């Protein structure tokens, strides 16, 4: 886009880049905010259906589809309360910390080939790291509210999120290992092709670890049945008991943003990213990387794919929320430490051994070539050797 602005519109470079950045930021912000609106509406409808009622029906005509917007307006109009003993600055800052963390993580999230805020060499790592900061806002909120409910909620959240980062990290490492890169774009590209190329179906271990990832992801974004931080039956509303109005809605947007983020991450890591189950584009002879108009539509198709998968993930989380009862805090910790972590470790080991033993997969014909040789150094017997320039760009077929 920046090139377009510079070359065609003849804007100065600095302005072009600024405009591009602003547009990208606005788009991401809208994904979060708009997504939150839709998801809140969807959640209410889904909850209603699961509980054998209708959910919102009137606002905005059919299905009550403007209900969220109406709620948002209501929240804007609400009085902004702050408890007397609260630590004012931290109380005000906490929602923004949470929201910013959630927002920041979107920077490195690719929506399709080249549809990405900033492509990063360490994309996965960045996303997980930034997502971890979200908890900081929650803790600050819990502390600054000067309320016992909030503090308890914050403590639970801290314990839970810090613990679940361990198995979550292990789950994420498996696709990274298979793709040989932490770049989310590369990981998704490696899964191009038919459904069988998805890392979910790479081997039995990745299949198992995907479900571990789902569990840990649900826990790390504090969704039921792991929503101990806001357990309304015990802690009123946990860390956001004292919040109201727009600040409260920031927490909400952060939560839905994180849900979308981990779902999108699951799609990128395990479910082929923006690659559909059937390689429609390549069957039609189109490519996403050429830069012409057709490729642009291929990318849009990919983005639709990814958004669909991520939304599906969010819907599944809602389904889980309204189906399963909440765990106790000790059960939450036990699930993490006694089940998820060892399982993830074992699966990680298994996937590694599988990769060593059967690098081509069980059915070699179904798998794409492993990749092409890049410039740099390769490990070899007794050290490393430099790749010959003649070999750069060669496509390597991994033999089983």
């Amino acid at each position, binding site marked *: 886009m920046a090139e377009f602005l510079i070359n065609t519109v003849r804007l100065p470079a600095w302005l072009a880049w600024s405009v591009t950045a602003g547009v990208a930021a606005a788009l991401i912000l809208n994904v979060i905010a708009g997504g939150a609106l839709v998801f809140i509406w969807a959640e209410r409808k889904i909850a209603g259906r699961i509980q054998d009622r209708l959910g919102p029906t009137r606002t905005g005509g059919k299905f009550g589809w403007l209900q969220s917007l109406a709620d948002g307006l209501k929240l804007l109009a609400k009085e902004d309360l702050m408890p007397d003993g609260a630590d004012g*600055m931290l109380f005000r800052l906490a929602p923004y910390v949470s929201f910013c963390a959630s927002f920041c993580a979107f920077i490195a999230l690719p929506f399709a080939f080249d549809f990405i805020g900033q492509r990063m060499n360490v994309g996965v790592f960045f996303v*997980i790291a930034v997502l971890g900061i979200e*908890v900081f806002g929650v803790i600050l909120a819990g502390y600054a509210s000067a309320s016992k409910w909030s503090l308890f909620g914050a403590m639970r959240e801290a314990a839970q999120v*810090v613990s679940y980062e361990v198995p979550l990290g292990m789950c994420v490492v498996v696709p990274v290992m298979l793709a040989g890169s932490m770049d989310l774009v590369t990981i998704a590209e490696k899964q191009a092709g038919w459904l069988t190329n998805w890392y979910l179906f790479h081997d039995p271990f990745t299949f198992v670890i995907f479900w571990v990832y789902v569990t840990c992801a649900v826990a790390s974004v504090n969704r039921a049945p792991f929503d101990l931080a806001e357990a309304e039956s015990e802690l009123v509303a946990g860390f956001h008991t004292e919040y109201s109005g727009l600040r409260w809605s920031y927490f909400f947007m952060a939560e839905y943003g994180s849900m979308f983020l981990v779902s999108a991450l699951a799609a990128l890591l395990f479910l082929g990213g923006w690659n559909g189950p059937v390689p429609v584009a390549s069957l039609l002879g189109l490519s996403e990387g050429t830069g012409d108009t057709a490729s642009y539509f291929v990318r849009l198709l990919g983005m639709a794919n990814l958004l669909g998968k991520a939304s599906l993930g969010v819907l599944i989380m809602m389904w889980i929320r309204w189906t399963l009862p909440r765990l106790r805090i000790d059960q939450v910790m036990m699930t993490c430490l006694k089940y998820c972590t060892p399982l993830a470790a074992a699966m990680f080991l298994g996937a590694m051994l599988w990769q060593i033993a059967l690098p081509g997969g069980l059915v070699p014909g179904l798998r794409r070539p492993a990749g092409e040789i890049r410039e740099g150094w390769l490990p070899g017997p007794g050290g*490393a050797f430099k790749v010959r320039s003649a070999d750069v760009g060669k496509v390597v077929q991994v033999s089983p």
Partner: protein
Amino acid sequence: MSALPMIAGALIAAPLPVAAINWHSLFFLLFASVSCGFAVAVVAADNVVRMAFYLVLSLGATAGLFFLAGAEFLGAMQLMIYVGGTLVLLVFGVMLTAQAPLVAIKGSGRDRVLAGIVGVALLALLLQAAFSVKPWRAPAAGVVAEPAATPIGMSLVGVRVDEPAVGAPAANKRPGYMLPFEIVSIHLLVVLVGAAYLARAKRRKVPRAIEVAASVEPPASVAEHASIGRERHRSGSVLAGGRP
């Protein structure tokens, strides 16, 4: 709401053309000022939780500096471990130990002055050292380098795949970091076990309620505090122990 056009106007009117701005330097300046400013704020603040919050901001901005310096992996690592891990731990500790009188334990004015003098001297020394070497002051030549995540990973398993610097031995002759990596792994394990052991919940001889009561009471001195403990032990009753 009228701020935006004002800033834009100021930029246009400024003697400095926007095109002359080095964006890398600008972002550096941004992150550096956040980092340094909040580091100083950590020193200045009295409330422990706020200190922790400032520290997070300072360290987060430092991660940004790392990104700017091309150390992406390190920056992400800084965010994850320092900001995400260490500080959550720290805040954890703050909260566990945070009773009203302890949140702010102020040092005396004399201490502040002394520390300030020593700090300024040290800063002067370090700045002198930073500017004393000529090549360090030379502005960046703008080399674009490969991202270092893969070479770091390979070096941690003992194989160097990064480009050797001029004059350095060839890549396969340089030592990897496998042994330090293993040592650090074991070290972390030991630390985890040790920390869990140190911080474990010990069996208390008296009910917890009394201790809270005793420590909420601002202890005037060590002696008084000790006498509370003795009293409590001697009486052994739940209600008798609280106030002398």
